[in-house]
């Protein structure tokens, strides 16, 4: 970590992370979706190795209200900032300048990168950067970060960063309250870089991070701050009133430097954006998107690619060659068995991970990245909102839920884009219970799709019913209020293949680092259980539940043991038994194993995000529930189709 830093700050979805990548070479996840950056990222600047660049989550409003806004405020308070690069959306200058009004008060030298000025131009919006620079007293550089346009000039102008001129004087009552607090802050809690006036305004705006910092810095004297704020509130100096004044000042300046030309017809991207949420066309488009994803991931990834990898590459070439090599060179028979036997680290662990899972997750992450960058997901949240309302969530939860179909662990982390702890808890619970990851989905499609379409349909309907029922109950049992959806819809854009590729590689790396050790550990445990003869004992112990209640062959117990490590590993175990399974057994087995515990990595992520107690409570609910649903389904299907089906 360097002794001085430059922070990239701005509204959500204005291109901060793309610019960060341009300025550092370090890649952070970039999407056409507000709220992608949930944590502060840091890397050394390309143009000066003594400076750290800090990418902050987007702020819709300051004073901070959401977790990501608080993370940004913490960066402003604690980072050794030499300057701030405010990244703004050129087509939405009012919002950009509303943030500038506050940054100006904090007294940090700044440069304004007026990003996406190409999109603004396409909409007939032009900003007079020179006039804006004069008004603010800081360099203003038009950029198109995705194409690298203006980035060199921005780097060059960083040396000219200066403190922006204040854009407004608040009304008399507010100025009195600010002056009073400034004096107290300057006496009891001076900040090494930020001005007392900026901190006073944020404190009056009830920013919890500033409040915490002042309390710590001032100790007992902070009671004075609270008393002063109480008096200000009584005089009508509310956070809303202050925000309104900032908005007005920003709006006035924005209007002065922005010119708009009327457009003859809406842009094609704009029209597509409207079609995909049209009350009629949205649904056939959604079906088309789902079909395309199914064809790419389900048919091409899980079918063609897995076939090539598993049967041809591994089955015909790699595995026979490696087995022959190991058996020829390793004298110890148990060691050879451990490497290439029935539960061999290579023949089972690596083969599962690389031949079966990798092609599926790769195609899934490519499809996900394309949809994410196109701006479709934000619109999907609008379409899904009514459904999600039934389970106490709003449409925003669609992003983690869909990502969960790729990797539940990664999606658990992504729930940070949700606005309330209650929404996060419900979403994480539902994902842990009923959202199969792509690896597992591939195995399910492979097994059930091979039996019949109705087998697959029963599985889909069962999962959906469980998701809705569990969500419906969770929404009523977990205290708190549902937050209605208010969301910005980013423009529909043609995804940049380079960005999708980088994102896919980043996600795959993350996934493989997580999955391979677990697959190897799982294989090792299976090997040891087999070697020490414990597997038959487990199979016997699980018999009443697995054979009696679920109606599965007793060997399926082993799949549930494997399922403790990863659900897809367990599902793959069932897949291996598929020649012994009747259609009903296959459906019951897959439904149970899908609901059954999420993988170890996602349990660890749940512990990290929600704490040990909640994670333990979730598992205590999920495991018996999975067997309950599986058993009920078994008896129901047998009652309808008869035991012989």
């Amino acid at each position, binding site marked *: 970590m360097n002794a001085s830093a430059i922070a990239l700050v701005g509204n959500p979805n204005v291109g901060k992370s793309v610019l960060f990548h341009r300025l550092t070479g370090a890649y952070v996840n970039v999407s056409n979706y507000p709220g992608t950056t949930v944590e502060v990222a840091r890397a050394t600047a390309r143009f000066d190795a003594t400076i750290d660049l800090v990418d902050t989550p987007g702020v819709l409003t300051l004073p901070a*209200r959401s977790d990501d806004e608080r993370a940004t405020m913490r960066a402003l308070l604690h980072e050794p900032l030499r300057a701030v690069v405010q990244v703004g959306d050129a087509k939405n200058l009012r*919002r950009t300048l509303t943030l500038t009004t506050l940054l100006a008060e904090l007294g940090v030298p700044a440069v304004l990168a007026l990003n996406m000025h190409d999109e603004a131009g396409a*909409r007939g919006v032009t900003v007079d950067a020179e006039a804006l620079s004069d008004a603010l007293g800081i360099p203003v550089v038009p950029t198109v970060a995705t194409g690298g346009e203006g980035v060199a000039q921005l780097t060059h102008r960083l040396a000219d960063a200066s403190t922006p001129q204040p854009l407004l004087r608040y009304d008399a009552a507010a100025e009195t309250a600010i002056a009073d607090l400034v004096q107290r802050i300057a006496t009891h809690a001076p900040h090494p870089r930020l001005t007392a006036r900026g901190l006073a305004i944020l404190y009056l705006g009830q920013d919890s991070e500033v409040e915490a910092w002042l309390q710590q810095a001032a100790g007992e004297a902070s009671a004075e701050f609270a008393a002063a704020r109480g008096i200000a509130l009584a005089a009508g100096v509310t956070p809303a009133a202050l*925000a309104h004044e900032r*908005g007005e000042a920003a709006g006035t300046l924005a209007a002065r430097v922005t010119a708009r030309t009327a457009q003859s017809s809406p842009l094609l991207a704009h029209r597509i954006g409207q079609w995909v949420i049209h*009350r009629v066309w949205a649904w056939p488009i959604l079906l088309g998107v789902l079909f395309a994803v199914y064809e790419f991931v389900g048919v091409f990834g899980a079918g063609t690619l897995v076939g090539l990898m598993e049967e041809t590459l591994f089955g015909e070439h790699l595995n026979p060659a490696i087995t022959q090599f190991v058996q020829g060179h390793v004298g110890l028979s148990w060691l050879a068995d451990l490497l290439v036997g029935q539960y061999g680290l290579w023949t089972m662990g690596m083969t599962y991970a690389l031949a079966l899972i990798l092609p599926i997750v790769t195609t899934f992450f490519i499809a996900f990245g394309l949809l994410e960058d196109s701006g479709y997901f934000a619109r999907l949240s609008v379409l899904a*909102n009514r459904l999600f309302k039934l389970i106490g969530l709003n449409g925003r939860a669609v992003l983690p839920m869909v990502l969960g179909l790729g990797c539940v662990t990664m999606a658990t982390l992504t729930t940070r884009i949700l606005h309330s702890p209650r929404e996060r808890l419900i979403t994480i619970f539902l994902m842990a219970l009923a959202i199969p990851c792509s690896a597992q989905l591939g195995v399910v499609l492979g097994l059930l799709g091979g039996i019949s379409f109705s087998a697959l349909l029963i599985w889909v309907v069962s999962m959906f019913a469980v998701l809705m029922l569990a969500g419906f109950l969770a929404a009523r049992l977990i205290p708190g209020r549902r937050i209605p*959806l*208010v969301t910005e819809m980013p423009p529909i854009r043609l995804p940049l293949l380079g960005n999708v590729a980088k994102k896919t590689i980043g996600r795959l790396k993350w996934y493989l680092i997580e999955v391979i050790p677990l697959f190897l550990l799982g294989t090792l445990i299976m090997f040891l259980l087999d070697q020490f003869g414990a597997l038959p004992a487990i199979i016997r112990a699980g018999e009443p539940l697995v054979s009696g209640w679920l109606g599965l062959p007793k060997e399926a117990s082993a799949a549930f043991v494997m399922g403790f490590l990863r659900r897809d590993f367990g599902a793959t175990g069932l897949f291996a038994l598929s020649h012994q399974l009747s259609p009903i057994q296959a459906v019951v087995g897959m439904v149970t194993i899908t609901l059954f515990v999420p993988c170890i990595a996602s349990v660890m992520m749940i512990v990290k995000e929600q704490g040990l107690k909640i994670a333990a409570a979730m598992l205590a609910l999920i495991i018996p529930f999975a067997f309950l649903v599986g058993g009920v389904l078994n008896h129901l299907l047998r009652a309808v189709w008869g035991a012989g089906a």
Partner: protein
Amino acid sequence: MSIDHASRVPLGFLLPGAQARVDALDDRIDPTQREQLVAYGLAPNRPLVMLQQRPMTIVMVDEVELALEDSVARHVWVTRR
């Protein structure tokens, strides 16, 4: 005079294509969400264009398309232009 013809109406009553100016966000919207709406540009005196009402209310403010759930849109008061 029916509510449809009154000039001051909740946002949820505007027909697609209609232009209006925000009057007020009433107290039944959660305070944090009210602040967010103001930050998005749905602030008193600001112009907007109604784009669609189904499946959600979608308006264009400041070159940004904003989707609002009905329970929020019915508490945003606007004057038709």
